């Protein structure tokens, strides 16, 4: 038996008294400075993310830099082509006031872009309105597709601009004529991809439709449409791409407000910087359209 009795419960009460906790140990280390952000968990994750981004950005960055360098060298050794620096200056001036309006022949670059987008939107919208139902019909009924096949194969390879005289003749005015050119050149990818999608609906799904004895409407909404949607989105993407390609050329010929006509106008003014800027604008807007549609397509894919 030991002389010292150890009362656990009593020790406990002592420990629980408020003052015992507040007394710092004698050799407490001095309060350290707060951990720097880049050494915390979040900071490290941030760094890793930034590193990944950096690694992903390095090759395109080098590519662009080389491109600009090459451009500079070519421009330096030619007497007409402006280099990157003057082009950049011109772009800054141009985008300082993109939405001025001095009458129909002198409008800001923003207006020109919007006008072109509007024509593409209307022409493409009409193409979708006609092309999607047509694609479904051609995909579903072999007879119709047999009927349409020779017409489509004949008309599809026709250069879009070959339609412009027809449009001008029919509509008498430039505006609907250029929309008609967009319509006729962007409708084929929609029709063909939709029809291919319908023809490729897996037999299994059609068997389900038959076994469940679904109505034509239910077959369309529950089986055909969702199954065709990815193909349809591909068609729409191709179609918008074509429309944007064609609009510049069509506007060059028809005039009015629009990026295509603007390019032509600047060529007549011998303002080559602006032509180069227009090329970048067309490229960037096309890229944005494409990316937006890719994003939409992803939202619509089910798997």
């Amino acid at each position, binding site marked *: 038996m030991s002389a010292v009795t150890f009362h656990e419960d009593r020790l406990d009460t002592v420990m629980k008294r408020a003052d015992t906790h507040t007394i710092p140990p004698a050799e407490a280390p001095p309060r350290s400075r707060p951990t720097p952000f880049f050494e915390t968990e979040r900071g490290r994750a941030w760094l890793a993310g930034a590193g990944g981004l950096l690694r992903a950005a390095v090759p395109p960055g080098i590519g662009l830099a080389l491109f600009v360098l090459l451009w500079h060298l070519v421009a330096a050794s030619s007497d007409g082509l402006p280099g990157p620096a003057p082009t950049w200056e011109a772009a800054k001036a141009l985008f300082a006031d993109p939405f001025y309006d001095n009458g129909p022949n002198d409008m800001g670059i923003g207006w020109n872009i919007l006008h072109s987008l509007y024509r593409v939107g209307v022409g493409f919208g009409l193409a979708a309105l006609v092309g999607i139902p047509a694609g479904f019909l051609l995909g579903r009924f072999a007879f119709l597709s047999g009927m349409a096949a020779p017409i489509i194969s004949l008309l599809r390879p026709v250069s879009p601009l070959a339609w412009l005289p027809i449009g001008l003749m029919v509509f008498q005015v430039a505006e609907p004529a250029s929309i008609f050119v967009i319509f006729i050149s962007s409708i084929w990818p929609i029709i063909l991809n939709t029809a291919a999608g319908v023809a490729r609906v897996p037999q*299994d*799904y059609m*068997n*389900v439709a*038959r*076994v*469940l*004895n*679904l109505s034509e409407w*239910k077959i369309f909404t*529950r*089986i055909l449409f*969702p*199954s065709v949607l990815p193909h349809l989105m591909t068609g729409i993407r191709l179609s918008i791409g074509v429309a944007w390609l064609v609009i510049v050329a069509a506007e060059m010929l028809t005039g009015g407000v629009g990026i295509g006509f603007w390019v032509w106008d600047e060529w007549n003014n011998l303002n080559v910087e602006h032509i180069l800027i227009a090329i970048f604008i067309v490229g960037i807007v096309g890229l944005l359209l494409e990316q937006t549609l890719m994003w939409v397509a992803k939202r619509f894919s*089910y*798997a």
Partner: protein
Amino acid sequence: MHHYLQIENASMVFDTKNGKFTALAGIDLHMRQGEFVSLIGHSGCGKSTLLNLVAGLNEPTEGVLLLAEKEIKGPGPERGVVFQNHSLLPWLSCYGNVHLAVERVFGASESKRRLRERAMAALELVGLAHAAHKHPHEISGGMKQRVGIARALAMEPKVLLLDEPFGALDALTRASLQDELMRIVRDTAATVIMVTHDVDEAVLLSDRIVMLTNGPAATIGEILEVDLPRPRDRLQLAEDPGYHHLRSQVLAFLYQKQRRPAKAA
């Protein structure tokens, strides 16, 4: 004698790129209402093809199929099908897949609420009420198969056509769904044709086991009457000599009489 389902001298010839391919030749089979028949045979012999004929998805190139004395001309809501590859629509949730079937069969006569209840009840039956909102790509193969089963059962069909319905399931789930199927068939007096590769499953569930010869031009090799009393209990059957005798007869057919021909290299 009157038969509910009659398959008379049915043959199925497919047109393929390499000419004609005779899958089935001269199939004769008569079934009573409420009978449970299993189709068993080696892979590729034509079991799914035969089932598709009864489902009405294909028409026989020769012969005729009659259901309740009417020729089978196409699929009908009185025949529920569970496909071998489950065939769920990937853009609908499990619930949506089942509801599509329920809506078609009962939509005209029942309230929306009742339809919802039916769809959920069917999912509950296969133990998937908790996955009702999930899409097919979010669930396992076995779960997909169970949704396929729920979809067919929800239609309350008079004839159930099951193409390896329990193929992708683990032994435990398989056993419980087999029991569930036996109970449903007893309650609804459904007529069932089930394709299976599992000899035990065939003996446990069937009134008759139809054994197909190897293709091409497969036909019925033997029909085995399973005269075990119902209700059947898998544990009791395990000790039943009659059960083992039946089992070995099927095995003998499959592995002696219809030995899988060695594939030409």
